[in-house]
């Protein structure tokens, strides 16, 4: 009887996984260690003041992800491959180096997330980080990547508690809505660093590579464009709904009481209204799952992109000899970030925020490549950008470059 029921339910579950497209996976992975900590800090340190940035970034995210998806559908190649074929070896080396740095930063944030989630219970990072690095490698090398990804994907859906929590804290929704449309800026390095991190954790270089490879690997075609577009837009909306609730949760709790976030324990306080004393466990579990999800996906995504661009063999079914570059890149991008996190006295929260800044600052480089490709008739045919897409994308690029420039100037002048 029970078995029968499972038999009938199984296809439905399978269907559920088959409709989870790139948009929703990317959205989920966006709320990784760097994401959760950045959004928490945005809310805790600046209240609702930065919500307008999040509002604008949602459009940028939707537009840039849609462009990546479209390039994948038309060219049937990953971003690295397209850059290689149309800009040559030097440019692709530059783009890959940029992506590698950004991704190493993000992986460092993921291992910091693992460390931080266990430090809540007083377990030292010198134990947890090497162990996590080892587990990640073993599962990638020996286990099933797909199943593990699914498990952590489900776990990381924990962020739904932020949405519930967002209602429990009874925030002023009218005020929050107003903040969405009210630009506010402080010309200080700390504000700008937080703002660039907010942009850089939402739109990421690796996200751009990820969405494109995803549609290529699935063998999707231009005829799937409409469905994929809807999915990508929905994914962008979903990501930022969650971000919105993390920010208003921390704003209504930490910011209101003037608590600054120094470690994960502080960030966990935001969940107290919903979970009470259980908040720390809940936060630690969520942060851990989200970090592990990123720690799995990113080293592999990095290695795939680089190997595709340079024509090296890749995939876990290649031998060590043939796939030496592939395995080396994966090992390097697990070991190096793990070592950085193990540096004594380094602040985990600072790593998580700064890595998102690195992503944000490097993002325009990748986006400019995307723009060059998507407006090239020879590559895209009739699927080049419409003016509105170009305007939003260029405004995003200029916005980030502008913010970075001002950040450099204000830091040099010692303002704030």
């Amino acid at each position, binding site marked *: 009887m029970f078995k029968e029921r499972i038999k009938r339910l199984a296809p439905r579950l399978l269907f559920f996984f088959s409709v989870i497209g790139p948009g929703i996976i990317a959205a989920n992975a966006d709320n990784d260690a760097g994401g959760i900590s950045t959004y928490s800090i945005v809310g805790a340190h600046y209240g609702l003041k930065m919500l307008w940035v999040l509002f604008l970034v949602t459009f940028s995210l939707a537009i840039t992800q849609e462009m990546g998806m479209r390039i994948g559908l038309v060219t*049937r190649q990953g971003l690295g491959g397209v850059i290689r074929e149309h800009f040559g070896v030097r440019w692709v080396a530059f783009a890959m180096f940029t992506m590698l740095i950004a991704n190493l930063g993000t992986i460092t944030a993921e291992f910091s997330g693992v460390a931080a989630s266990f430090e809540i219970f007083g377990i030292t990072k010198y134990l947890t980080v090497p162990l996590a690095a080892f587990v990640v490698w073993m599962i990638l090398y020996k286990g099933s990547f797909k199943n593990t990804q699914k498990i952590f994907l489900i776990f990381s859906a924990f962020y739904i508690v932020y949405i519930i929590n967002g209602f429990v804290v009874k925030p002023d929704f009218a005020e929050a809505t107003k903040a969405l449309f009210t630009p506010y800026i402080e010309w200080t390095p700390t504000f700008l660093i937080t703002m660039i991190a907010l942009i850089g954790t939402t739109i990421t270089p690796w996200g751009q590579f990820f969405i494109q490879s995803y549609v*290529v690997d699935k063998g999707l*075609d231009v005829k799937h464009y409409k469905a994929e577009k809807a999915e990508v837009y929905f994914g962008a909306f979903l990501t930022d709904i969650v971000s919105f609730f993390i920010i208003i949760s921390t704003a209504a709790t930490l910011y209101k009481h003037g608590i600054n976030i120094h470690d994960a324990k502080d960030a966990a306080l935001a969940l107290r209204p919903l979970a009470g004393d259980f908040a720390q466990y809940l936060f630690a579990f969520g942060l851990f799952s989200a970090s592990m999800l990123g720690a799995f996906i990113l080293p592999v995504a990095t290695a795939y992109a680089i190997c595709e661009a340079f*024509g090296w*063999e890749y995939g876990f079914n290649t031998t060590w000899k043939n796939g030496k570059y592939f395995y080396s890149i994966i090992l390097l991008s697990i070991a190096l970030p793990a070592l950085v996190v193990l540096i004594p006295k380094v602040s985990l929260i600072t790593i998580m925020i700064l890595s998102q800044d690195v992503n944000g600052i490097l993002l325009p480089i990748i986006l400019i490549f995307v723009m060059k490709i998507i407006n090239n008739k020879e590559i895209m045919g009739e699927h080049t950008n419409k003016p509105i897409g170009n305007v939003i994308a260029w405004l995003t690029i200029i916005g980030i470059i502008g913010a970075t420039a001002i950040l450099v100037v204000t830091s040099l002048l010692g303002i704030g």
Partner: protein
Amino acid sequence: MLFLSQFLNVPIVDSADAVAGRLVDFVARTGPDNYPHILGIVYKDYLTKTEKTLGYESIENLSGDGITLKTTILKAKNFEILSHDLWLKKHILDKQIVDLEGTRVVRVNDVRLGISDNRLHVIGIDISTRGLLRRLGVDKFRIFSFLQPLFIEWDKVQMVGKSLKLTKVSRELIKLHPADLANVLESLSPRHSGSLIKSLHPAMAAKVFQELKSEHKRDIFKTFDPQQLESILAHLPADEVVDYLRLLARDERQKILGSLGENKKKTVEEFLHYAENTAGGLMTTEFLKINHTWTVAETIQYIRKVSGSFRSILFVYVVNEKNHLLGVVSLRTLIISNQSDHIEKVMKRIKLHQTVHPETGLKDVATMMTRYNLMSLAVLDQSHRLLGAVMVDDLLGKLMPKA
């Protein structure tokens, strides 16, 4: 050694020492010999800012510093580029290709040129890291000479993607073992591997297709239009069609069933009833079966005739008029027996307990094959009629899905 990358962007100097423009690309044409010869170059003219052509016969000397002409630029001959001519930079450099010798997908780091019979030819592809460094401009002082150069001869190269249309399917590609070719296809994007399969002969395409992993099968099938799908399905044995149909939703299944021939449709529908992890789900109908009244000579004649449409033939099952299984004859027996002997005399009889039913589980199938040292196991229905056979390679594939 001459490489394409040395010449890209070099100045074009005519006999009057005037710089006419810069090199954009080489254009080559595939002739009767295996190596495409260079027809000439495309350069960007300094004065008009447009791309112009120059025939190879007008060129006096090629070097990394520049290309010199025999005449003044005005007297130099141009040539006509046809739609199937190869542009070395545009169509080959930095693109993905299949290395047919190493059976893998690689990227072109450089194109190697060579002179034979007074003509410049494309002789191979450089896929080495050293080629990559040369392109990056960091190999000026040859400090990386310890890195081995790695060339692929031009006739061991198969283009993919858009360039596939410009070069035909390589003869070497067809010589590959279907399993090796399938391995290569799995590392290309489904679109690219789909177009490569489509360019093969349907019978070859079907053989390669059988070797693909099931998720790749589905992705690649998605890229076919109904006609191509039909022609490949027609060449697939019934059990392979069934494996493919199992991946599909019910309404799609019906559509494809409708497009099959009457006989095959019946077999496929029958097969679909058996669960995947049973002898019935695993068995194939792709084996030879002959009547017990035949002679050895007749049997060998028959094998010669039909062998083209079978992946492998190691033995022949012998049945009577009612399709009851009587025995098996190995190729060895056929070779050493007297040509005029009747099959019944030379065949090895198969006892009922050495066969299975379609419902028999995988584990029992494996046990049975191990116990009796069988390369294949006959599957019989209730009234002892021969339905199919489980092959040892299919069973292994099921037990070791990762290989």
